[in-house]
Every structure is written in structure tokens, then in C-alpha cells.
């Protein structure tokens, strides 16, 4: 038991991600990997047309230039795990909470589905279960048993594949070793063919993400809202920044 009088100390960890927009080719392998890793239900054409698609990660497309010299920039958009998250303060039941290692967690069993958090998320990455989740025929046989199940009427979102983080941490605790940088890889990072995404501890000075986060290209989306997002985008070098 911890002594309640002792002031709470945040962990030394702050999980974060670096996404190199120059490297992203828009193949959406991350989207597919995320679906299979996190048991994201398929919604079908009709529901997708009603903006009820459940993808925890999607690609924002920005077009620059005049025809025929059009360029597309792809920005993978997932939960930014904000340090000062707007979704957390408005949830009346503490379903949206901050973890010690800087993750923005969603407690599905506590969620009552007020959708307040989704309104307040400026990135539109929180997804609502409008009906009980269903999977098309062969997909239900590859469900990941490590992921918490969601039911109709709750909000869900990217967790940075928290099941992989926790598994690595527990494995290393058993062996008495430390998690090394680059060892934990969420599904989207693992599947990226161009290695545009990188996951790691932003507080660890020697990690790859921390060094990239300090580069001159680093940029955070909608940083002017003062919500301290923990995904750093490396802006494209060739053109004026698209966002």
C-alpha cells in the first residue's frame, strides 16, 4: 500500500510516437494491422457512409498544388495520447483517464456512452459503438484474446496497443531487466513498410523517439490548443507544411 500522504509521482515513462510524414506512402497497412490487432469490428458500406467507421487509425489526406502538379500528403491520425487531454476532463464517469506512463486510457466497462469525449476530441479519433460489434465471416476466428472486449454503446479508441506494452513490461519484470528502446512496437508501427512510425519513451533521453522529437522538423498537430499531444509528426521537407 502506498502512503496517501506521499505526493504522487508520475512514472519515468511517457509513451509517445514519431511519425515521419515524408515517409508515409499512404498504403494503410497500419489501418489493417490495427484492425486485426485490436479486434475492430467491420461496419460495412452503409454504416461507413454514416461516418460510423470504427478504425482507430485513419489517414488524413491533404492535397497541395494545382492540377496536374498535385501532391498528396498522408498524415496517419490516431489518438494523440494528449498530456492535457480534453476528453478526460469532460467524462462524467472517469472512463477516460490518464495512466501513470502517460497513456490516455479508456475504461470500457465504466463508459456509459455520453459521447462527451468524442465531441471534445479535436482529432476525431474516438469511435463509438453504435451497435454490438460484428465481424465478417472469417474475421471472427482471428480475434485477439489479449484485447478488452467492447460492447454496444461505449466509446473506444487507440490505446497504443496497451496489451503489448503491458506484456513486455511484465515479461521484463519477471526476468528483472528493463524494456529496451524499440522493443515494444504497436501494430501500426510493426506493419509500416517504410518505417514511417516509431514508438518509444519520450522521457528517455537516449531513445530514438526522443532524439527525433527534438529535430527541427518536429511538429505536433493542433498544438495551439494547448493539449500537449504526444505524437510528434516530422513535417515534410519538400513542400510547405500541409498542416
Amino acid at each position, binding site marked *: 500500500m502506498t502512503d496517501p500522504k506521499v505526493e504522487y509521482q508520475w512514472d519515468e515513462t511517457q509513451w509517445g510516437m514519431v511519425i515521419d510524414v515524408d515517409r508515409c506512402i499512404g498504403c494503410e497497412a497500419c489501418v489493417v494491422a490495427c484492425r486485426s490487432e485490436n479486434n475492430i469490428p467491420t461496419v460495412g458500406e452503409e454504416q461507413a457512409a454514416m461516418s*460510423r467507421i470504427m478504425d482507430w487509425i485513419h489517414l488524413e489526406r491533404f492535397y497541395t498544388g494545382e492540377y496536374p502538379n498535385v501532391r498528396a500528403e498522408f498524415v496517419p491520425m490516431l489518438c494523440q495520447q494528449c498530456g492535457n487531454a480534453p476528453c478526460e*476532463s469532460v467524462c*462524467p464517469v472517469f472512463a477516460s483517464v490518464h495512466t501513470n506512463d502517460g497513456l490516455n486510457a479508456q475504461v470500457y466497462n465504466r463508459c456509459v*456512452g455520453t459521447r462527451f469525449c468524442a*465531441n471534445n476530441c*479535436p482529432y476525431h479519433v474516438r469511435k*463509438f459503438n453504435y451497435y454490438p460489434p460484428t465481424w465478417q465471416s472469417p474475421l471472427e476466428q482471428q480475434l485477439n484474446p489479449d484485447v478488452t472486449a467492447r460492447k454496444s454503446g461505449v466509446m473506444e479508441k487507440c490505446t497504443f496497443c496497451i496489451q503489448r506494452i503491458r506484456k513486455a513490461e511484465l515479461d521484463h519484470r519477471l526476468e528483472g531487466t528493463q524494456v529496451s528502446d524499440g522493443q515494444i512496437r504497436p501494430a501500426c508501427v510493426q506493419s509500416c513498410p517504410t518505417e514511417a512510425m516509431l514508438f518509444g519513451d519520450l522521457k528517455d533521453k537516449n531513445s530514438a523517439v526522443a532524439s527525433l522529437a527534438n529535430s527541427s522538423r518536429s511538429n505536433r498537430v493542433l498544438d495551439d490548443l494547448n493539449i500537449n499531444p504526444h505524437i510528434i509528426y516530422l513535417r515534410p521537407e519538400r513542400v510547405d507544411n500541409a498542416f
Partner: protein
Amino acid sequence: MPFKGVPDFVAPVYSNKEVIDRVMEPVGSSSLRSNIFIFILGCIALWGGWKFWQQTQIGMSVTGLGSPSFWGFYIATFVFWIGVAHAGALISAILRITGAEWKSAVTRIAEVITLFTLPAAASFPLIHIGRNGVFFFLLPVPNWRHLWPNFRSPLMWDFFAISTYLTGSVLFLYSTLLPDLGMLRQRVTGWKRTVYIILSWGWRGTQPEWKRLKEAAALFSVLILPVVISVHTIVSWDFAVQLVPGWHETVFGPYFFIGALFSGVAAVLTVMTILLWTCPSFKGLIETTHYDYMGRLFLVLGLAWAYLFFNEFIPHYYAHDNDVMYYFWDMAFHHFAYPFWIMFVFNFVCPLVCLSFREFRKNIMGMFILSIMVNIGMYIERICIVFGGLQTYNNLTRNVHFYFPSFTECSVVAASFAAVIAGYILFCRVFPILPIWELLETKARQKVHEVAGKKVYYFQWGE
């Protein structure tokens, strides 16, 4: 023509017994026509309940919602009902505090509106949540997990504000109802008499009882004012604390509050007129003078609303706030152009032009139509804010999701309207809708002076 500074309000010309008889006439009465009407309303309410049950079983997919329109018709209706519910406390409390003698005809009408619309409003956040079965997670009830709700969330503040307001206004209504229940007890027999004896808590009309009643009414009218202000300000904070352009505004507190009072007064005028038309015995108790005074209050609130309405736009225009200007453009000239300009005419142009004239304020039919128009306009305003704010809300690629309420949502909203109207009619059948003792008190206080051959009415204070 009355003298300057002297109100031209005159207490009912009937004798005391006539006043009592006239107010009591609808109590206990029923007609085939109204029974059929209540039956139809009941069917609508049951149908809405059935659709809501379907929603709990199927999921929120039966609504028209989708990202980024996570809130929709339910929340707009919630704000609308809260606004209408503001009639009660404002009319009774302000008029009691200022000692307006004409109040007695409208106080209870207004309080009973609150009694039925506030539960209707409070039910909508619970209807709208995804897991209706566990709505009690939102309430601060003791539980084995020692989990408290998040007190930083405006939904939590809503719960406290609405429950305080409901408790306060029910007590306010009930305490002023006691003498009338005591009077009613004498007029009925059998089991009804037992019911009224229990309801009137053995009211005998002794001096200490009257003293306590007066004290309670005075205390309630002062204490309920901050609650009234808090309720709708907090409802506006549901929106104002969010990052949605067009919602994230400091003016929302007063804007929603004044809007609520505006629609509340309109609702009182609507109900007053319907009562006057359906209960012929109320003629002489509700008069054109009441319409004149209510119209003045209506005009002041309309002007205040218009000021805050423009105040919402102008700072953003000066600041060149792109996101918000896009929202305004979308509202005024793009997707919401028709509702927006209908609202502008109904809420701003018509009340301002019409209510400026005493002749119009004394025209019952005109006031009735205007009150309906204002409430339609206020409903559209809430719909524009809720639908429009979210539809245009996409900071990144600015996709617009067109939200349109589904049949289920419309059914549930219609059911709430049906339930409120049916509840009101049933209340009028069981309880006197005009406060008899206040009417008689006004009558007793009225004194007449002959000045230069003309009669001048004034009201004497004190016991």
C-alpha cells in the same frame, strides 16, 4: 386612462365565492373531447417509449448520429425543455420579490410548466447515452468500488443543478398549493376527500400557518433565483467547455440563460391562452392586462436575447477567428440558412416589432401566435447550435457529416411533448391551476380612491 405611476391592473371583479367557483370549475371535470385528446397523447407517449426500448436493445445505430455529430436531436430537445422549464421560477420568484399584484394569474401556470418540463428535460441526457442500463454510473451513489463521478465534467454539474432546481420548484409549487388544497378538501366527498386531506397536510388556515406559508414563499422566491441562473448556465457549459468552434464561447452562459427565460415566458403565454380558451370560467381572472405585462417582460427578454445573439457573432468577426467564422457562415448562408433566418425572424424581428405596441400586447390571439413562433424559433436556435456546431467541426480535413434525426429520435421527442401536455391537462383536472388564495388576497388588498371624479385602484400592503 390610468394615472402615471399607478398600475392599470384591477383585481377580479367577482365576489370571493365566485372567484373560488370559477377557478374550481375545471377541477374534477372531464369531457369526452379531452379524454380522447389525452388518449391520443398517451398513445404517442407509449409509441415513443416503445421506440426508446428498441433503441436500448439495438443500440444507438437507430439514431442518425455519426462522427463528428455525436450529439443530436436529443440534446437539442434537452436544452429546449430546460429553457421552457425556466418559466416557473422566474415568473413566480421575480414577481413575488417585486410585489407585482398581477402575478397571481400566472404564477402557478408557470410553476406547473416547470413541474412537467424539467423531468422531461432531465430524461433526455439519460435517453441519449449509449448504455441506458447503467445510467446510475452518472450519479454520485455509494458503490463498492468507491468510485465517484468526475466533478470536472459539466454533465455532473448538470445533475446537481437540475436535481436542485426540480426539488426547489416542486416544493415551491406544493407549499403555495396547500391553502387551495385545504379549500378543495371541503368541496369533494368520499375517497377524493381523503386524498385531498392527505395532500393538504391538514391545512386549517390558522394565523401561524399563514405566516409560515408567507415566509416559505418569500424564502423560496429568493433562494430559487440563483438556482435558476445556475441551471441554464450549466447547461450552456456543457457546450462552452468544449473545443467545438461556435460552442467554445464565454457568452454562452448569459446567452442560454436569457434564451431560456425568453422561451419560458413564451411557453407561459401559450399555456395561459389555451387555458383561457378551454376553460371559459377563467374569463375575468386572466385578462388582457396580464398579457400586456407579460408582453413587456417578453419584450425586455427579447431585446436582451437579441443583444447576446449579436454578441455571439461580433467578437469572432473582429478577431477573424477562421473556424468560428466558418461555422457562422455555414449557419447563416449555407447548410442552415433556412432555419437560421426563420429563427432570426421569429425570435428577433417579430417580437421586437409586435411587442412594442400596447395594442398588440393586449391582443390575445396575436400574443398566442407570437409565443408559439418564439418557441419554434428558440427550438431552431438550439438545433442550429447543436447540429451546426458539430457538423462543421473537423479541424483537419473539414469533412462535414450531415446529421438528420432518425424516426426513432423524432418518436422519442414527440413522446416527451405528448407526456408533458397530457401531464399538464391531468394536473389541471386534479388541482386548481390558478392560486385561489393569492387571487383573493390581491382582491382584499385592493383599495379605491376617488380622485377628480375618477376611480384609482391601488394595493395596500401588510396584513
